[in-house]
């Protein structure tokens, strides 16, 4: 991908306000298509899988634009990139026709073993060079625009040569990729590591933001943990607004992965997000692809056989 990412961003669709595709709320999601502009799926839950997972993805594809947000690219690992992973990821992205794809600025594997969590990186020049090179390689292989997401982190890794904001900035600009900006993670980190969230946002290249995440968190002991299992709080809405006042954003996602409330509560949160977006980016609040098709969607009957929960949640999340 030889073009400058900021040029690429201009050509990406504005997809509006979306929700995570989660097994536990899939039927209700499909029955509320009128309230949701797009869905984000975790590709590892659909790569080379059949049965209900495949059917769920196909149903989603028939009703929504889909965007992929992975958890095991392990872009920061010193292991070699996995050819198998990239090949299978590419297949599912091609099937979903995702306008962009994303993963986390972290490592999830070392020595060939996956830890299945988003683990923090040391803020070093070596890490910047290593990760930027890998981002370029995966972006070229997948042939779709790639966004890296800022994670919440609960410890400082040894050997830091720069701040979190500097680290993110150098990676984005050296790799020339996009940003998936999670403002709940910014908030959580600002509390846990005692810095001003807006200062962080002022230091990173916000114009590389293509997509945003908003989510809830929970205080557990002395930490605030990014659980994706609680309602959004006002400071997170404020950070969303702060970013939308400063750069065009093509999609905002409500991330809810566990402790699901009544679906109407999620719909209410989507409306709140839309209301924030409406103030500065009306096209984001009411994207053209949904405005044209925003008729009453016929309700699908709930699945006659809800499968018992077996296997991990789509994303690891701490609940206490």
């Amino acid at each position: 991908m030889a073009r400058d990412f900021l040029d690429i961003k201009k050509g990406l669709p504005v997809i509006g306000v979306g929700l995570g595709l989660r097994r536990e709320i899939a039927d209700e999601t499909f029955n509320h298509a009128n309230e949701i502009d797009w869905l984000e799926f975790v590709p590892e839950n659909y790569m080379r899988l059949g049965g209900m997972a495949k059917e769920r993805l196909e149903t989603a594809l028939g009703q929504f634009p889909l965007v992929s947000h992975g958890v095991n690219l392990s872009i920061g690992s010193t292991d070699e990139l996995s050819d198998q992973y990239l090949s299978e990821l590419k297949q599912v992205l091609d099937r979903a026709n995702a306008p962009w794809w994303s993963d986390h600025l972290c490592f999830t594997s070392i020595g060939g073993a996956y830890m299945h969590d988003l683990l923090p990186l040391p803020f070093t020049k070596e890490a910047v060079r290593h990760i930027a090179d890998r981002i370029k390689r995966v972006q070229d292989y997948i042939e779709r625009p790639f966004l890296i997401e800022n994670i919440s982190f609960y410890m400082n890794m040894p050997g830091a040569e720069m701040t979190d904001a500097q680290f993110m900035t150098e990676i984005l600009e050296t790799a020339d990729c996009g940003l998936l900006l999670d403002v709940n993670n910014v908030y959580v980190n600002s509390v846990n590591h005692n810095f001003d969230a807006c200062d962080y946002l002022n230091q990173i290249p916000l114009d590389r933001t293509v997509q945003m995440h908003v989510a809830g968190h929970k205080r557990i002991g002395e930490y605030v943990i990014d659980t994706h299992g609680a309602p959004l709080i006002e400071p997170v809405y404020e950070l969303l607004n702060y970013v939308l006042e400063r750069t065009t954003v093509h999609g905002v996602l409500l991330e809810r992965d566990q402790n699901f409330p009544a679906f109407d509560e999620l719909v209410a949160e989507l409306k709140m997000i839309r209301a924030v977006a409406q103030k500065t980016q009306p096209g984001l609040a009411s994207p053209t692809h949904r405005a044209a098709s925003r008729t009453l969607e016929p309700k699908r009957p709930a699945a006659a056989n809800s499968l018992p929960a077996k296997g991990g949640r789509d994303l690891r999340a701490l609940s206490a």
Partner: protein
Amino acid sequence: MPSLHEVEKSLSTLWLNKDARQWLLGSRKGPVPEVLANVPVEILRQVDRKGIELYAGLLSFGHNDVMESVYPFTARLLGKKWPATVDDYLAKFPPEHYNFNRLCKRFSEYLTIHGGSLLEKYPFLPELADYEWIELEKMEEDVDIISVPHEQLTTTQQIASFGPIVNPTLSVRDYKFDILSISAEIEAGRKLAKVKPERTLVAAYRHPKTHAGKFAQIGEAAAQIVEISKSPVTYQALLPVVVSLTPQLDPQESVADFLELVEDLQELGIFIGSTQIGN
């Protein structure tokens, strides 16, 4: 300054290895544990101790959570020994696949090799684990199940020209123990009496309509019929097999039983229709 690789390797060891972590976070008396021998001193000195504990807890929680969701019966049976068993399993069989559920895949193998005293008390444990895993495996198997129409076999021409289509997700497990009954007892919360071996053949598959993982206890004849039917074969060609396996029955009774079995297998979704064989 430690390299990126050294940082990642060292921190992952501290997050995953309890002994190493306890040495670091404790009084650090005694020699450095072998797993920490190559960790740069600067890391051991600078490391964020609270952060190590927090991430160790997050990782352990996530791993235990998924293991318990896949192996609820085994977890219930092992009770207080479950967490340590999971830790030891993951230390010996670190997850090598990007899919989170696959972390659980080799637990039966682990129990067979390393079950030790657990197997003395619960000799069926590896088979119970296999039974619990295979349900998920079948649910997720990357294969399409395409059912075709089946008409009840009422004419000799149908029996001679048509043959069954076997569900492509089907596996037949030959268990030494009656795993279905054992799991039912555990699920009901009843205490297991000393379990004696009792050979049980179990068909495991994904239901073609509901996508649920399904099990059916089957007899020797059904197991052989299903196995032969994985290659194109007419119902007529299966009849001699049935008759030879049921010498205690009158041949006409065997045929009648066979036809009933075919309908049962179609109903269950083990057969997913019938197809014309040959011309």
